[in-house]
């Protein structure tokens, strides 16, 4: 059934929207907004991991670039929320464009660790040398213009706006994977050299894919900055890169529903388990072991079979 939903883009959009509506209204719109942001991040991460087969240990860098891009734009340019979101995406894209040409040539552990290294570097840069601009560890608090009902300090508006963003990302993701580009991505993941011998400049397309991934991560980061009304170094903290990896693995890489389930499941564990267990991370560790040994294809893999 899951496969049938995934194969129909309108149905996928409907199911994703319904899932967040039901979850949001049965718990709290305020909390679920976080879930939506994180799910966008998972989808961005999955463009690199699920679609290109490249696992990054440093995707918080691009998320952080989006947060700081939005924040700095609001403070130094103009406090328009949409301009801030755009700035966040541009920061994410620019970083992807600068680092991508080198990074996408790397495979496996080299790719994963180089991303981590750049994440570490970025973290240090905002923490110390750029502290006068970024506010260092304390970060900066933000406020944004509001126009009538378009008011980012109202969580109801945020919920709907962010959900619309998520649906836009889902739409794009499915558009890509069903286009000729999607066939190219699958082939490149299987045997990149062979794709070159069909006349494709694989390097260029891999950079493009990486930039799509970093731009979506930047979007998630920017939305989060608007959500929190501040940015600080926790939004670019490399140790948090594991969260998105975990969510992608948990949900199942390479498809929208897997990413959405992974994002929701991870956030649920984090939000609600943390109320009961002080060291909820240990539970995550155990769950990860279980996934690594038993559920190679994540929740999607299990549910799609049944």
């Amino acid at each position, binding site marked *: 059934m899951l496969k049938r939903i995934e194969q129909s883009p309108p149905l996928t959009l409907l199911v994703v929207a319904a899932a967040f509506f039901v979850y949001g209204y049965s718990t709290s719109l305020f909390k679920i907004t976080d879930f939506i942001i994180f799910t966008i991040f998972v989808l961005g991460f999955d463009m690199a991991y699920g679609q290109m087969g490249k696992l990054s240990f440093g995707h918080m860098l691009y998320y952080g670039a989006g947060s700081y891009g939005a924040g700095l734009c609001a403070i130094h340019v103009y406090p328009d929320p949409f301009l801030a979101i755009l700035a966040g995406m541009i920061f994410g894209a620019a970083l992807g464009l600068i680092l991508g040409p080198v990074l996408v040539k790397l495979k496996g552990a080299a790719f994963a660790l180089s991303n981590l290294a750049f994440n570490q570097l970025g973290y240090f840069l905002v923490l110390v040398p750029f502290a006068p601009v970024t506010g260092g560890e304390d970060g900066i608090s933000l406020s944004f213009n509001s126009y009538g009902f378009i008011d980012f300090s109202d969580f109801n508006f945020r919920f709907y706006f962010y959900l619309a963003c998520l649906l836009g990302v889902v739409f794009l993701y499915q*558009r*890509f994977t*069903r*286009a*000729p*580009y*999607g*066939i*190219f991505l*699958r*082939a490149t993941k*299987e*045997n990149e*050299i*062979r*794709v*070159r*011998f*069909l*006349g*494709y*400049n*694989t390097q260029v397309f891999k950079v493009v894919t990486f930039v799509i991934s970093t731009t979506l991560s930047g979007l998630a980061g920017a939305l989060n900055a608007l959500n929190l009304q501040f940015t600080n170094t926790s939004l670019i903290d490399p140790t948090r890169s594991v969260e998105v990896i975990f969510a992608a693995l948990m949900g199942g890489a390479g498809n929208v529903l897997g990413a959405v389930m992974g994002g929701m499941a991870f956030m649920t564990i984090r939000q609600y388990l943390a109320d009961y267990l002080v060291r909820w991370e240990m539970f995550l560790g155990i769950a990860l072991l279980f996934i690594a040994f038993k559920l190679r294809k994540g929740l999607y893999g299990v549910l799609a079979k049944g």
Partner: protein
Amino acid sequence: MSEHILATQGVSKAFDGLVATNNVTYGLFPGETAGIIGPNGAGKSTFFNLLTGYYPPDTGQVFYHGREITKLPAWDRVNLGLVRTFQLVSVFDTMTVLENMMLARMRQGGSYASKGRFFFGRARRKGLDDECFKALATMGLEGKAGTRTSDLSYGEKRELEIAIALSLNPQVLLLDEPFAGLSLVEIGNISEVIKKLKGKFTIAIVEHKISKLMDLVDRLSVINEGALVCSGEPREVICDPLVRECYWGKEDMVCY
């Protein structure tokens, strides 16, 4: 040299001190069908890899239509009409037969030229489908379009790979051991296809069994231990004492 469509000038390639291609100067004439033979490990595949840009030569140059392409990336060479197949069949097992063909065709027509359609358009559309079915039909594979490629027999995969190569509009087609691992019937089929293609464009075939090439090629060259030993009319070449020496006792040599 300028009458060659594809040529090398003293190319060499070594792997950790092992010289796989040794100072080879070779050329293909437009429209000819040339054979390259040599015993196992002679360096035939390495030579093809140098021609097609799989890796660059350590020394020497490669020319295409008289223009130097030694440093040109593989994809650019393909787009100039330099197309190859691999010794170990190389198609995409996780995709369907049709998708394999689409991958080759979708950047040929308008869909690649317009980037928007490449990223956002639908992969399945009438024009491209028709093109792909036609291309599959060249090897009689149109009935298998929906099959997952991993479910094809080895021979069918080989046919698919050749169909894909042909769909790339080659000017020069390089076939690395197209008969390896196939049954006699399949070998016969592929020989027939190659015979029909003869003259339409330039073809080079690598093979280590001489007998399969004898009635297929206009010219035969022999590579041994990385070096070009001799080149000429097939029947003369196989009677050359030097050739007999490197094949002696190893192969199905018959002097006609």
